[in-house]
């Protein structure tokens, strides 16, 4: 009897361990997470417009139908990414997610304060390799550190009423997300021929 009780207690305790391990493992083994769902329909290091949120669209749950959405799925192993998103009259935002769908940074048109949201996305190592006199640090370009080399950038533009949806989609269609063409050589000094 005591032995059975001991077994049950041991089983429940071990169950707690199984629970903790499986909760921590779930984001790694999930095959239906947002990144996995978006991978087949999005281009790497380029902007892909997502279909509008409609009843038949089961791409992701809880999409906001008032927004036009576009995705830039990125891989920074080829160099930092330059992102430029023109803002619309109402509201535009850019959110950054890691490969495991953690939202690590988000900015909207007002906090960007310009007609175009311009960002450089790079890993912490690439950021550290930037020469200090490089004009990108002097300019008011915003540099975002990505915690991992792969992830998602979600671009959203609000259509304040249904008739404004084409405008919101057009703004996102004009957005660009690409690997910086000239990989800034860390050793070369002096003003490089940029822009």
């Amino acid at each position: 009897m005591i032995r059975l009780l001991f077994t049950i207690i041991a089983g429940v305790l071990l169950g707690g361990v199984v629970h903790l391990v499986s909760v921590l493992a779930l984001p790694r083994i999930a095959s239906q997470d947002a990144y996995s769902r978006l991978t087949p329909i999005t281009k790497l290091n380029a902007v892909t417009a997502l279909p509008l949120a409609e009843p038949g669209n089961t791409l992701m749950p809880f999409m906001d139908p008032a927004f036009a959405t576009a995705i830039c799925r990125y891989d920074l192993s080829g160099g930092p990414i330059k992102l430029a998103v023109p803002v619309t009259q109402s509201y535009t935002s850019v959110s950054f997610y890691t490969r495991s769908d953690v939202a690590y940074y988000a900015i909207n048109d007002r906090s960007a304060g310009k007609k175009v949201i311009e960002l450089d996305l790079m890993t912490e190592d690439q950021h550290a390799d930037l020469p200090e006199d490089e004009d990108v640090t002097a300019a008011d370009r915003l540099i975002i550190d990505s915690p991992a080399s792969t992830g998602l950038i979600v671009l959203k533009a609000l259509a304040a009423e249904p008739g404004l949806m084409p405008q919101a989609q057009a703004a996102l269609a004009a957005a660009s997300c690409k690997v910086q063409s000239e990989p800034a050589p860390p050793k070369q000094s002096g003003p490089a021929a940029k822009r």
Partner: protein
Amino acid sequence: MFTTLLALVLASVVGLSATWMTATRGTNFGTLKIGAWTARPKTGTADVDPYSRASIARSGDLPIGQGDGVSFLANTDDRKKPLDGRCDVVVSGVTPAARFWTLTLYDLKGHLVANALQRYGFTSEEIIRGADGAFEVRIASRSRAGNWLPTGGIERYALMLRLYDTPVGVATRTPRDAPMPTIATVGCP
């Protein structure tokens, strides 16, 4: 031998069912509850807790980032009655400070519900307000005057109120910081 096996089986059942429960129903870590509305502002930050991460990975959702906004979900009215698409439900009052907000109706899986009007929600810009700035949205299966949000007659649904560019977030604790609209079931056929 038998006892070891029993312990292991028990461990798997207890552990995995606990994971299933928390990943599907969610937990109360960092949950902000105001009336019938709940939000988890921390899911939009790098500090997201492991339970929310598991739940996000399972559902395929992309949580709204903190610099973008915050989302509040309601499955029931203020009296804890589940939202029923065959009833008339009124969402009224004011919303917390935000540059824009949207109110959207979903089925319990988070998909939009088809209707002839192709109206799935309202934005703060298109809603009709009273002289005092307050609004009233009528959620019903049949056409209603004013701000009518059709339910398509589904049995259970959820409402999501998203605030964009808002001070509401991880620091928000009380309903005074975030006055949410009330949800009331006013009549069922």
